[in-house]
């Protein structure tokens, strides 16, 4: 039997959110059984962090968690340099999370010095891409869904091609918007706002700042905890998979004289406004009402 690919997880500047998210995968150990786990911060392996820092291990699939900062050291070792050391020998390099992919929340503290591994917000880091572009898989998300990572790992194990977009994101996961599959679509269609948080009815696009329609992701196709999603429970999507995450005032829709500033992905404003004006003109009784009247 061919030897199992070596899986190495390296943390740079991170809150550990992606490790913990992946750790919560309902089939974690069955997935890991296909790999030789070299290092993962939450599970004990044959090797210590020290072994990793001393470059005593090897990697076939390198997972990077956290943003990159030139002079960041751990145990006296420069982490950026360490990542490059392992990246060079790896067949796949996966950036897990928005920090590792684009810079994310950590970039806020020192925007000049901190970035993603191969992208700095939406900008490509050409020196990095020229080295690793064909081995790189971007998995933005704050955090990533455990199944986004297992999808990638299992595709690799099964020697299947993973179609990627221009930012190296798997199209299967990021080719749709978060809006796709949200249970509130009908309310979006008829422009009925939810007026608050946590309600069963209404859509969060008009007042509460839902970014679902212009955020790449599959939160409403691959549910969180196999159960639900932010937008389904009545919280706006924060656009955590996007290069410009985090933005400000995440609980309110930015408008220009009442007109949403950002449009659903690829929809011209003129087209959107025409359709909206028409949809808004109708009063749909069923959608204006509560679905369940708890007072009765």
């Amino acid at each position: 039997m061919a030897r199992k690919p070596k899986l190495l997880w390296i943390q740079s500047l991170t809150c550990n959110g992606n490790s913990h998210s992946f750790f919560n995968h309902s089939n974690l150990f069955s997935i890991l059984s296909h790999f030789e786990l070299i290092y993962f911060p939450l599970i004990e392996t044959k090797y210590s962090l020290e072994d990793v820092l001393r470059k005593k291990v090897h990697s076939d699939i390198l997972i990077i968690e956290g943003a990159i900062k030139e002079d960041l050291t751990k145990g006296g070792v420069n982490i950026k340099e360490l990542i490059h050391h392992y990246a060079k020998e790896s067949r796949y390099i996966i950036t897990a999370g928005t920090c590792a992919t684009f810079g994310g929340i950590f970039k806020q503290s020192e925007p000049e010095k901190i970035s993603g591994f191969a992208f700095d917000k939406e900008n490509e880091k050409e020196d990095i891409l020229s080295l690793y572009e064909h081995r790189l898989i971007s998995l933005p998300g704050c955090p990533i869904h455990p199944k986004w990572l297992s999808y990638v790992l299992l595709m690799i194990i099964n020697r299947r091609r993973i179609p990627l977009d221009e930012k190296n994101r798997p199209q299967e996961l990021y080719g749709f918007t978060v809006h796709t599959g949200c249970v509130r679509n009908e309310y979006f269609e008829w422009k009925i706002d939810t007026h608050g948080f946590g309600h069963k009815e209404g859509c969060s696009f008009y007042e509460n700042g839902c970014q679902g329609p212009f955020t790449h992701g599959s939160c409403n196709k691959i549910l969180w905890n196999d159960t639900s999603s932010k937008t389904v429970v009545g919280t706006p999507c924060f656009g955590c998979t996007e290069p410009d995450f985090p933005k400000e005032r995440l609980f309110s829709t930015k408008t220009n004289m009442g007109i949403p500033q950002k449009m659903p992905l690829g929809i011209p404003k003129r087209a959107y406004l025409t359709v909206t004006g028409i949809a808004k003109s109708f009063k749909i009784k069923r959608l204006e009402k509560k679905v369940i009247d708890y007072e009765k």
Partner: protein
Amino acid sequence: MHKGYVLTKKELKRESILKTALKLFSAHGFHKTTIPDIANALNMSVGNLYNYFKSKDILAKEIIKYTSEVLGQEIQKVNLQNISSKEKIKKIVELYFKMAKEKPEMIEYFLRVYLSHREVFNDGCEGMLCVSGFVTEIMIFFDNGVESGELRNQDFFSAFGLFMGYLGGMVFLKGENILPKKLDEYIDDISENIYNALKA
């Protein structure tokens, strides 16, 4: 009605019915104008006119959509120009007054038929349904102005009412023969006032 392709004979006929009915409704009022009046003015039979529009109410609604589209297309041309919001305001005021002068029936129809006979338009022209061509372009104008930082971010209807209510009011006064000067002579002042009210 649409740019970019040649209208068929039937579409041309439809448009000429809309234009003629628009003139008659504006001149004689909605209730006093009958379908036979309109057919007569077009030299067509009543039966044939009904082939195009099933009732007077439907015709009335199609007219408001038509005028809204025409006005919207004119404003769109202004929106697509690479000029400041201040200059756009002046151009919109100019074109509105130009239309009031050259095609007074369009503005008259809006003010005296559409706004005065809500019972006809309530069913089928609810909300912005029939005026979306025009309202959409005003929205685009506001949106661009706020985005570029030139206009103040405020409530849409406060701004819309100020802009369009003002222009409509002036044309109305003109129609009542109350204005001492020609409409054109007010363009500079009015544009300035609107800009001052909307600027950031």
